[in-house]
């Protein structure tokens, strides 16, 4: 592998950067320039935004999103195993059972801790009394 073999990558880089530069410059020179306040606003579905984009929203969304990602990733691992599980035999079954046990155990834990409860008041009943008072 010599440096010359990397030449196509270099050409690709130049082409990509050139395309961006040319399109941006061309549109800057040829476009009409008539700004209005609406046009300068950040784009949001083509509707005039009603509230500031940055605002507080409940942390439970993050919790659900995080749990979703965890189980999503588990499914990805199972796909890899599922495509060759007949070849792996009982060893593969045992390995996947161990893996699934740990994911399920996590689900049971977060469930019992109330992470799946949408209602925050009901969630806090899982906490110990001393923690509830603090929260």
């Amino acid at each position, binding site marked *: 592998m010599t440096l010359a073999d990397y030449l196509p990558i270099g050409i690709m880089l130049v082409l990509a950067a050139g395309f961006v530069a040319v399109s941006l410059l061309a549109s800057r020179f040829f476009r009409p320039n008539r700004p209005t306040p609406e046009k300068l606003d950040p784009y949001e579905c083509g509707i005039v935004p009603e509230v500031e984009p940055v605002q507080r929203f409940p942390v439970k969304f993050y919790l659900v999103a995080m749990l979703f990602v965890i189980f999503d990733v588990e499914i990805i691992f199972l796909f890899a195993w599922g495509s060759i599980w007949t070849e792996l035999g009982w060893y593969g079954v045992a390995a996947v059972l161990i893996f699934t*046990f740990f994911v399920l155990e996590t689900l049971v834990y977060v469930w019992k801790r109330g992470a799946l409860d949408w209602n925050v008041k009901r969630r806090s009943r899982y906490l110990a009394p001393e923690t509830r008072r603090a929260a």
Partner: protein
Amino acid sequence: MITPEISWLAILPELGLALGAAAVLLVEVQWKPRAQVLGMVVAGALTIALAFTVVQWIRAQDAVAGAGQLGDLVAFSRMILMDGFAVFGRFALLVTTAIGITAGWRLIEGLGRRRAEALALILLASAGFSIMVSANNLVMVFLGLEVGSIALYVLAGMTRSSSTSDEAALKYFLLGSFASAIFIYGVALIYAGTGQFEILAIRSFFSAFIVTSPGVILIGIALMIVGLGFKVSAAPFHAWAPDVYQGAPAGFVGYMAAVAKIAGFAAIARILITGLGDLEVNWLPVVAGISALSMVGGSLLALVQADIRRMLAYSSVATAGFVMTGVVGGATSGVLFYVAVYALQLVGSFAVVAAVSGPANSASSMDEYQGLATRSPGLAAGFTILLLGMAGLPLTSGFVAKFGVFSDAWSAGYQWLVIVAVLASVLAFAVYLRVVVNMYMSDAEGPTLEVPDTARWVLMIAAAATIIWGILPGSLLDLASSAFPL
């Protein structure tokens, strides 16, 4: 039919730890028991893991003695090794975990319903680092490193109410992930240069071929040294250590630092000495430089600290340098002995810090230790033994450890490094003596100190180990020297 040679024994200790972590969490949410019940579950998991480790040790020794086959020590498609080196590292990790949990028990109890999470994280961290010390595949080393490190990041931020704890966790996380990324980049370059991920295969590659243009490989080695150097807090990759040691809850810091050191140095020794031994002309000067910088820099900076935790952090940077002289010496047994001995001293010292300044507290000013000898004579005596052990006074285990690595480096032809190391040891001695003088030669401020029983036990074990292995080091030295890697 793909049938990897399965030897479940190879991962039973880790499996035990992981199942223990799961059991702790499930017991907690189902029965909400007292902390002692969770402690018993954890103790059970650790006992099982230790028992399997002993079985592995016997097997490894049999295989080396010719009673079994060396091939038996390689498991899971050559991913995991059960050689003496791995088993010794595992054993040290498990013992450190048990003592670390005992040392942090008051903190864990105070965490309320989150105590199960702390215990589970500790067990998972140990399982990860245990994989790291026994991995033969560089990707497996990385996997273990990440499992362990991520658990440690969370432990650093376990006291959520304290902003310094948050700061420590975030700093540790950001810098740590960066170091992990650098390490895995190095692994990728080694793979690009040799076509191998396995440490044993890399060794046979280099003994079979002479690489004429090893540029990629050398960059790979450099990146791996940087990544692992960060984990063991060797200078100049030590910047995170003082902040994390100071900010993280005192009950956990000793454990966190000790297991990261054991696993990091086991990985460094295995990768550099075993895997890349034939390229040592290339990496020896670098490691020697890092070692000298850590020893001198760490000792000098420790001398000027006003906070005992920052002082211990910089002294652990210096210790990383001392252990590195063993890596330069090329003998894995000296490295193993040093980290095993130092891990106990570190956990014991932080048990003292937790007892004096509160387990969840993050400020531990040196002033709090003034006249500690009158406020709590036992604590001061134990701490003195540990500090003198770290300093390497004769008749402590620290001396035996330092003597071992220094003589290895001397016979490897690095006389200048040994001279620097001895001078740095003198500096380090001043560091530790300052605390001892502070404890004994000043007047006490404040009432008699209430020392929890767990801290007392940990301190007794650590101090006893320091003295016993200082006077009669033979037992542990024999174990360490028969714990050589495949």
